């Protein structure tokens, strides 16, 4: 094979064996969390493949901190993260109805004014 790339020619790639290739390595994935500034939350941004936390951090830095601002990165093994099932989302459905948890649900001004009128204070 005569390539236009001098590096490819130096590699003598025609010597590489033909036939099926099976990638025998299968690294686990790590979920990556990016913190933009000190004092802000870390936000999930994606995954990297790695065999140790150190390697995961290096790859996360290359992948998710190439641009913009970064204060820190967190990584956690995907298998160490527990979540609800997505189709259980309806368990959160009644939250908006629970107005007794909201400050806006407590209005006493009218009651105070009515009391003041009745008692002429």
């Amino acid at each position: 094979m005569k390539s236009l790339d001098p590096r490819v020619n130096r590699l003598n790639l025609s010597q590489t064996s033909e036939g099926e290739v099976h990638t025998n390595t299968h690294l686990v994935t790590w979920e990556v969390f990016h913190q933009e500034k000190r004092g802000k939350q870390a936000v999930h941004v994606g995954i990297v493949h790695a065999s140790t936390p150190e390697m995961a951090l290096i790859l996360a830095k290359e992948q998710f901190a190439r641009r913009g601002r970064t204060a820190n990165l967190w990584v956690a093994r995907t298998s160490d993260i527990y979540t609800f099932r997505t189709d259980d989302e309806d368990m959160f459905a009644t939250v908006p109805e629970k107005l007794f948890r909201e400050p806006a649900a407590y209005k006493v001004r009218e009651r105070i004014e009515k009391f003041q009128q009745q008692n002429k204070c």
Partner: protein
Amino acid sequence: MYGSTNLTEQDAKRMSDTSAEDPQKLAEFEDRIARGEKIEPDDWMPAEYRRQLIRMIEQHAHSEIVGALPEGTWITRAPNFRRKLALIAKVQDEIGHGQLLYSAAETLGKTREQMLDDLLNGRSKYSNIFNYPAKTWADIAVIGFLVDGAAIVNQVINSKGSYGPYCRALERICYEESFHLKQGHDNFVYLATGTKQQREMLQDAINRWYRPLLHFFGPPDHLSAHSEKLMKWKVKLASNDDMRNQFLDQYVPKILELGLTLPDPNLRKNADGRWEFSDPDWEEFKRVINGDGPCNKERLAVRRYAELAGRWVREALMKPNDTYKVPLA
């Protein structure tokens, strides 16, 4: 053709048959997509939706890492230090985009390693345009400006799709691609406004890349297998001809304003806004995609070399007791 959704006849037939799916779940799924909701990895989805998405995202990922090869060959020969730094940064971005896309596809249940195997064994494709050589430095200007421009047209459209992880990856990718486009345009304009020799080199590169660029968005609509399902499921969001037209609309004026030409006497914009052009030889497109292009063998040989030469490193890194779990999002 980055996230190519060109179907074979067989695929199109399989897509139209959803009789194996639970009709109620299928209806709920289609309602969610129609409402503009995103589908996430552990949501219910039809088997064909999963299959087509894996195929498309995987091809897109392969295109990123194979696409870095023609440009990577010019890093050692960049004309000055600033261009060299920009090219290194761009090539690193492309590999990063490949990783983001492999990760998005992995959430659908196919591991990155299986995808890399399929690339090397020829079972899955990458964008045809990377089977052409980058002969001179002007090719790098054309790739950085026009090939990336075409890719952005495709990627911006695809980022409005229905699969959450793919959309999020594409948003990050599009943000970085805007740097690729700007540095490509800068390089392009410098050559176009440079010496006679630089202009000639650039014109020659444009002439060679014109047809592959028309091929980029896939065969014309009247020659490709269709699937209403892919459109309905928001896997494909615009037809090949519509994307090609949008590309010509955006980029032809930017080439002509520099006094450069395109090697096609029939290229013109009609009153209805559609671009007309000569047949870019779809037989050649087919030949190249089936393996008989100028660089197909070299591209795969380089990937195969990287795989085999780096194997001992990856083996040394393996932790046999780690339990694999499909990534979350």
